[in-house]
């Protein structure tokens, strides 16, 4: 049995308030599908996908989707430690979820330390322009103020979904190249991929959606 070949494995986590659309975002990213109804996540969910961060460098993203509900906060905390990056998602139609990202930022940071963690602030549901409560500018301002990447996405239209994950994966890769992140023995945030004796392009098509979530 042959596994898809990749150079690195990054473990990422999606956090943010309940109902901001984390699961939909992830589902679109891994399955390319969007459904209007989505049950709230109970606990955690897991997905994986291969992407190419730059030509010839392929990365397997292990993605932990977490429940935004308060009652699972203590559960989701235990997933921070082994993550190298986090997508903090807010709902642009819900001011409250934007205001809460500070809290998410702090919580994740405190749990991921001493490891360095990369973030991308995701303003989700960008398709619902009429109901927007948080302007793009506000979002960007907040991200820049904290030195974070920012992007607005929509799982409904697929707008920027791919880019959001690419953005984060590229940043992590850059940090890795720059030596600011290292592969560590007892840390699952970043792992080396399998050795590749030769390129076998037929095995995994670039950007192929792979998911463990739905079969």
């Amino acid at each position: 049995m042959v596994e898809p070949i990749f150079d690195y494995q990054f473990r990422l986590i999606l956090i943010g308030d309940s109902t901001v659309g984390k699961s939909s975002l992830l589902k679109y990213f891994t399955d390319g599908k969007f459904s209007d109804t989505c049950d709230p996540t109970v606990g955690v969910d897991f997905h994986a996908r291969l992407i190419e961060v730059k030509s010839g460098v392929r990365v397997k993203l292990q993605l932990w989707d977490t429940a935004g509900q308060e009652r699972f906060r203590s559960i989701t905390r235990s997933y921070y430690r082994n993550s190298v990056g986090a997508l903090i998602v807010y709902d642009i139609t819900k001011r409250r979820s934007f205001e809460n990202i500070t809290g998410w930022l702090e919580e994740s940071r405190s749990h991921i330390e001493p490891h360095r963690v990369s973030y991308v602030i995701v303003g989700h549901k960008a398709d619902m322009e009429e109901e927007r409560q948080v302007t793009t500018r506000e979002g960007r301002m907040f991200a820049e103020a904290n030195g974070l990447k920012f992007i607005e996405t929509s799982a409904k239209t697929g707008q920027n979904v791919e880019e959001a994950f690419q953005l984060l994966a590229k940043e992590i890769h850059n940090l890795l190249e720059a030596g600011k992140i290292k592969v560590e023995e007892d840390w699952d945030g970043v792992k080396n991929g399998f050795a590749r004796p030769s390129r076998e392009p037929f095995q995994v098509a670039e950007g192929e959606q792979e998911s463990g979530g739905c079969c």
Partner: protein
Amino acid sequence: MFSRPKGWIPGLLSKPKNPHSLEHLKYLHGLLCKNQTVTEHNRSLLVETLRSISEILIWGDQNDSTVFDFFLEKNMLSFFLRYLQQKSGRYICVQLLQTLNILFENISNETSLYYLLSNNHINSIIVHKFDFSDEEVMAYYISFLKTLSFKLNRHTIHFFYNEHTNDFALYTEAIKFFNHSEAMVRIAVRTITLNVYKALSPASDVFSAGDTDISSPNQNSTDEEKLMSTLGRSHRMELPGANSEQMQASFSLENRPYLEAIFNALECSENDYEALFALCLLYAMGHNDGIHQDLMDSVLMPTERSEAKDHYNIALVERLIRIITLACQHGIKVRLSTLELSIKLLRQLVFRPGRSYLQDRHLACIENARECSTQLLRNFYKSEEIFLDMFEDEYTQMKNKPLNVEYLTMDASILLPPTGTPLTGIEFSKRLPCGEVERARRAIRVFFLVRDLSLSLMDEREEQLPLNRDNACVRTNDILDLNNSDLIACTVLMRDTRKQDRRFLVIDKLQMILVEPDTRRLGWGVVRFVGSLQDVEVTGDKEDSRSLHITIHKPPSSQHARPIPLLSARFIFDDHIRCMAAKQRLSKGRIKARQQKMQMIERLLDIPGDSSGKTSTPGRARPVPGRSHPVRVHTQPSTTLNQLATPESNEASRRPKSAPAANTSAGKSESASRVSQNEANVEVAEEAAAFAYQTFNQQTGGAVPKRHSPSPEQNNSNVQEIPLEDLSRNKKRHSGRKVSNTKLTGLAHSSSHTRSQSHSPKRDEGLSSNRGRSTSLTINVTKRDRSSTPTRRSHSKSSPAPMVTHSKSRASSQSSASEAPVVPRKSSRDGSSQSPKTLRPADTPALSLLSHDGLLSSSGIDAPKLLPPAEMDRIRSMSDISSTSSDSQNEGSSNSSQNKPSDQRPNFTYNSPSGAEAEVSNINADQNTVELVKEGQSSASDQLTKLAQIVHEHYRSFKDEGEEETNLSHGK
């Protein structure tokens, strides 16, 4: 994704050598992908694969995190779930449960564990419908649940609550097996339950927002605790018992939302659905040792533990009284269980044995309720047999099956809204009545319950219930002195066992007794069987004139249960005469027993007896109490047969045989005490007479006071002076009146008077069963007539001349006697009453024979007695009429002539019961005589031997006895 295993090279799928490696897991995953459907062939392969997977995962958990990553990436858990959903039988289920069990037991990595627990996968496994009849499945399932329960903590508990189904499956599924037959399972369930509670307790806020069926501990707080927590301190602790006066006044439902809700539920505005639950709860609170009495006291709810109940919660008591009052009213909203529970709770609040703390105004409410319940029952009161049966049946049921609140709360049927239909199978007390009969039953029960409450609150003893006084009853194996009793020898052939016994039949006031002579004491007998006279059913045997079929049914244990016969046997008597005598006495006894009880019920219900009351409630006729009492005054305490045997009477016992004619006079005057056995008869007759009188008055439409005045006077004076004489006389007179009465009622077809039948519960089953009320009148007529006969006979005997010739003249003499009670007593006693009594024994057979178309056995008896029954009856009715007319002067002959046909109709019927009745009364009279005679005797020893002889003769030979009787008759 598994359906299209892209990018995989099938050729590389070879089994790795190292069983504990990622490679091996990949290989196993490949196997799963290829065998996504469970079949006969791949079954064992899959089982082995699953087993290996769990092994590798455990190994990976400790050694290689990539193993679980692979498990995650390939979402292998979903394979498990899909296998489970396939109808793969127990084979794979057992393995899956085992695999999961091992996984949960051994996975130490919390993120892995959380993943496994996430998204209700485990919940769907828990609620999966396994085949629990399979012991192995059951065992793995329950241990799987147990393993899960050990993974519960305040964080993971959230995984087990399914928001979609609003279910805590681990708990709810586990407790389904709390009562499982396997001890192991029960223990596991207990463990699970405890683990759930343990996980819950520190996180009590967990489910307070969501409405789950597991209540958090702080929901169990009381109003007081709630108040305390809001105020930050306790008021109640500062309240000692001393200023409870203040408490009484100060109690309010304010700030007591829980209690208020419960109290409000007690209002049965629509029905008593909620009230019953509230009552159960309040009752349980009072019986829960876990609730501190201080707490109960703080809301003024004394319990059994309270020493004094001076202060009770008025708001609660008033609500309870409202329920009780409501139950006693016509509109039926309150079920019997609710009523009974209300009463129980009320007792708990205000009653201690021997002392009631109920305030007067509340007591007045209870008394009012009792009055209402009596009133309610009066509306259902009927003179029918079924009413008496129902009445007694309800009483025993109430006494035997008092409400058990624990059982009540366990009964799921009370969760349904109150229903009326018996088809639901819901017990009568837990539903509303359906139909007239059930409404009557309910009214009876309400009456009993409220009466009982009222009596205990008033600290009075129940004197009138049950109608059967057990201590006055003979029991099996009692040894009775039968020296003075009237015995009929017979052979009893049991229907079921075919057993044949020689017995003596004794008919008491309320009981039919079968005795066997006591071998050790002469003249004594051992009771072998006792049956209630009111339940006796007698039928003749068409083929054998000496046989009777007697059935006695046990009172049914429940309404729907078929009555079980206590006795079902054929009684073979020595001859036809005795047979008929027995039949008569049994039938008569049955009626008397029932009449007596009906009167007791009437007394209980205060059914008015005087004419004024009658006009308002037509038909509710009852003897004027004052009139019947004098007779009762003479009632001796001697109710059992044992007591009847006094030395005095022993002396007398010799005479009936040796010199029947001579001794009669002797016994009489002293024999007031002897009356006891007949006292019932007399009483009945007395009351019936009074009743007749009233009816008469009512029908003639006037002269009420006039009518009333003479008879009480007479009675009283007679009774007081010479009781016995009075009795016989009364009988006479009454019989005359009775006849008139019955005729009148018979004539008066007005249905409005049907109630007047109340004194005569149904007579001949054959006749009455198919008839309506108006026809039952005629039956009554028959009966009255019959009951009158004995007395008349006794008179007729005064002249030893043949009956036929004398009957008419006798009738007139009789009537004159009754008309003028002033007639010198001595003479009337000596002349008319004495001789008839002694002579009677001989007459009895003659009569019975007559009524039966002169059977062969009667051939030896005097010719005059061989009258056709029709003739006899005519004669009787003639005499009746004459007595009537003379008794009720106003009536005159027109009345009597009118009456005649109606009277005759029933009398002329040839059915044996009616004929037999007359005989019964005769025999009763005989009995009288014999007793009286006995008393007159002087030597006790003499008597004993005599009796012994009698008994032995009875026992030995039937024919001899028959002859003896014949001799007696000749002797007179």
